């Protein structure tokens, strides 16, 4: 394929007019849900129900229903938490960091990715709360003076997590909502239903599409992007601190913060690709979410995959270089011990398969990218499993070595979290515009003034 570098490739394809874009995005909200919708929500709802049952049993009998044991005190609870927080990284990265990097292509996917961020963080939040064993006492995680004289342990990274994740959730939610305001106004103008009109009017905050409105909007958006950017980095950095501040071999290594952030973006993008493939097809958004979008996302997946690979290699090299026998044992045990199967799943899924994206054909082929994206998600789940479980199961005392096997309840809750995530995603597609109408209009052909001397 011959590329002309002299012209900017269009972000929106098919020469859609501005009103066509609006029609296309608003259509799912204005039509009744069809059979496919009920089948989809039936499946995700079932998964959610399985999760609810397993959670209820766990709450009734206690954490003993899980596979956690001595020495593996951290099992699925932490693995799933880190996994879901990681998934929640793509949205804010796309909406904040790519915004600051002036990547116009982000507009087609930003809304959906941000929504996924919010849902993923909801899923993530459930696990530590359940893992405390007494979720009803969760209020004590907030530092407030009480008559019991209870005070949180500020030196524990677990409490930093509470603040980091809740801050991230709040800012992501506000960011998402600010972006939705102009769209709420557009929907308000479109709808014929009285109830909908009232709801949209409330949420559009009196938006009039006036020049002054846009001026404020753009300033607020830029500021929020500035705030959200360090948050994207900080959340997974602090999650990595949960492990890395300890003195466990395999956990305590200085590369963890950037390594976790790269891994989070990696898995988050893979999840966004997985879900967008379906959304694009079902809602006929092929001209707005184009193959160019996927091409770029797949490049990000490949790049972050290699960063993760770099971190694996560094861990191996420095474990040897450090001359510390415990470090060396943990790394060798990871690769060749009882959990070698998990380690090699992780390496092949995260490092080997994404290399297929070197080939342009694969970056632009829907079946190939779907397969790779799912494999990356599997691989990234196993990465957290490998980090958590393999470091714990064989510690300094060979007499206390053990093996972790998840119980049905562990798996049930994991399935349930996927159910919750997809139920929220499916509901979202029918209640809110899955693509930012106003932002896509702004990057459509003819929306930008062309400058002198340009050949547009």
């Amino acid at each position, binding site marked *: 394929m011959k590329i002309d570098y002299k012209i900017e490739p269009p972000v929106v394809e098919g020469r859609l007019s501005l009103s066509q874009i609006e029609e296309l995005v608003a259509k799912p909200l204005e039509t009744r849900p069809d059979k496919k919708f009920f089948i989809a929500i039936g499946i995700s709802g079932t998964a959610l129900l399985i999760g609810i049952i397993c959670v209820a049993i766990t709450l009734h009998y206690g954490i003993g229903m899980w596979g956690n044991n001595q020495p593996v005190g951290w099992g699925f609870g932490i693995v799933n938490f880190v996994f879901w927080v990681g998934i929640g990284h793509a949205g804010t990265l796309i909406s904040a960091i790519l915004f600051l990097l002036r990547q116009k292509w982000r507009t087609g996917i930003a809304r959906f990715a941000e929504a996924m961020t919010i849902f993923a963080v909801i899923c993530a939040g459930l696990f530590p709360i359940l893992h405390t064993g007494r979720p009803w006492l969760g209020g004590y995680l907030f530092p407030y003076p009480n008559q019991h004289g209870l005070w949180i342990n500020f030196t524990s990274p677990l409490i930093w997590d509470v603040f980091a994740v809740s801050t991230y959730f709040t800012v992501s939610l506000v960011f998402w909502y600010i972006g939705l305001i102009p769209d709420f106004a557009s929907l308000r103008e479109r709808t014929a239903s009285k109830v909908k009109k009232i709801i949209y009017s409330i949420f559009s905050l009196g938006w009039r599409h006036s020049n002054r409105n846009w001026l404020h909007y753009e300033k607020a958006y830029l500021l929020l992007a500035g705030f959200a950017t360090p948050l994207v980095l900080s959340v997974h950095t602090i999650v990595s601190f949960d492990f890395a*501040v300890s003195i466990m071999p395999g956990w305590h290594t200085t590369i963890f913060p950037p390594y976790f952030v790269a891994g989070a973006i990696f898995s988050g993008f893979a999840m966004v690709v997985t879900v967008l493939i379906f959304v694009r097809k079902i809602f006929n958004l092929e001209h707005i979410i184009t193959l160019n979008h996927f091409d770029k996302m797949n490049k990000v997946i490949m790049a972050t995959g290699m960063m993760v690979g770099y971190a694996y290699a560094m861990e191996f090299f420095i474990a040897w270089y450090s*001359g510390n026998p415990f470090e060396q044992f943990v790394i060798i045990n990871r690769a060749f011990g009882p959990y070698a199967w998990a380690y090699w799943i992780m390496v092949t899924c995260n490092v080997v398969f994404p290399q297929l994206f070197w080939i342009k054909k694969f970056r632009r082929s829907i079946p190939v990218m779907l397969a790779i994206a799912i494999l990356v998600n599997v691989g990234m789940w196993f990465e957290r499993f490998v980090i958590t479980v393999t470091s714990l199961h064989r510690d300094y005392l060979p007499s206390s070595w053990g093996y972790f096997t998840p119980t049905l309840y562990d798996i049930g809750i994991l399935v349930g979290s996927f159910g919750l995530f997809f139920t929220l995603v499916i509901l979202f597609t029918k209640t809110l515009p899955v693509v930012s109408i106003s932002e896509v209009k702004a990057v459509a052909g003819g929306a930008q003034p062309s400058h002198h001397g340009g050949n547009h």
Partner: protein
Amino acid sequence: MSNSAIEFKAKQIPDTLSKLGLIILAIGVVLGILAFYTDHSRALFNYLIAFMFLLSVGVGSIFLISLEYITGAVWSVPFRRIVEFLASVTILLFILVIPLLLNMHDLFHWTHTEAVAGDEILKGKSPYLNTSFFIIRVLAGLVIWAFFYFAFTRNSKKQDLSQDQHLTTKNIRLSAVFIPIFAITITVSAVDWLMSLEPHWFSTIFGIYFFSGTVLAALAAATLIVVLLKEKGFLHPKIIDDHLYSFGALMFAFINFWGYIAFSQYMLIWYANLPEENFWFLHRWEGGWIVVSILLIIIHFVVPYSALLSQPAKIDPKRLKFASIWIMFAHLFDLYWLIMPNLESEHGYSFSSIDLVFPVSVVGILILVFNYNAKKYNLLPLGDPKLERGLNFRL
């Protein structure tokens, strides 16, 4: 197609620049030789700082070139030549590395066979840390960088005449190959030249730490040249504040990145407090070193962060000049903080006028390298298909 870029006639770089560069370099070399006579090992460690700084600017510039191609950036195209000029420093490293390789025994503790023999840990590292493998790695790194430097710039300069779009595609492919190789080579350089100065210490993040400084140094050098050229009217009239903004924003981003990586490394080692790692920081907290360590935070983070935070600051030429000079100084200071504590001195930190000598030659070398290239090649990549878009770039 009317191409206003090609019609633009660049002003000649004045001859005084080469004289200025030569004078500075001559002063630097004389002072450097004197320094080696006064205190050989201190001068050697300072020479290593200067060498690492030039490595940062040179290799960091190749990285910036590849970053432009791989991301398809347009705003930076009118400045790519300046970055290419700076990247040619990489070739000088072949000569500059010789004094270091000849004096490895004075730099690296692990080259002392009798010390390694009595030290279990160093014995364990000897398959990696041994003189011949070290030299192989250093030379391999230099050859790889030189290859990519020539490949990138050859295509870029060929394009000036041929305007062949395929050359851009070629360079994009080269960048995709270069970036992973760059990650490995820069990490190996960081481990070899900086981390192995204290051979007992280890940190997995260290390669990324050096990488962040490398990009900063290259970016700051390019920014300084761009602002100076723009002020003196050597650049295309279409280059406006919007272009400068990108330089300011990128420097700001990498200042934050450096702060993030530096904090992560310190925080984890401080918190775990394991004697096998924390001694490296404790050493930098002893005696006068505590002042240097605290100054590093202020010089490398607080000052440039505050200077570049606001939006107007990122387009103000005066502020950018200050910030770019400051950031280059900060990278030197960072290298000083990494390297000098390994010079064996009994009573903590002591300042010596030798520490000021080698940066003089660095300035001279950078001026001469720029002058040499600017006289020989076009200041604008005239045949680049993205040039027109780059010149018309608006925020």
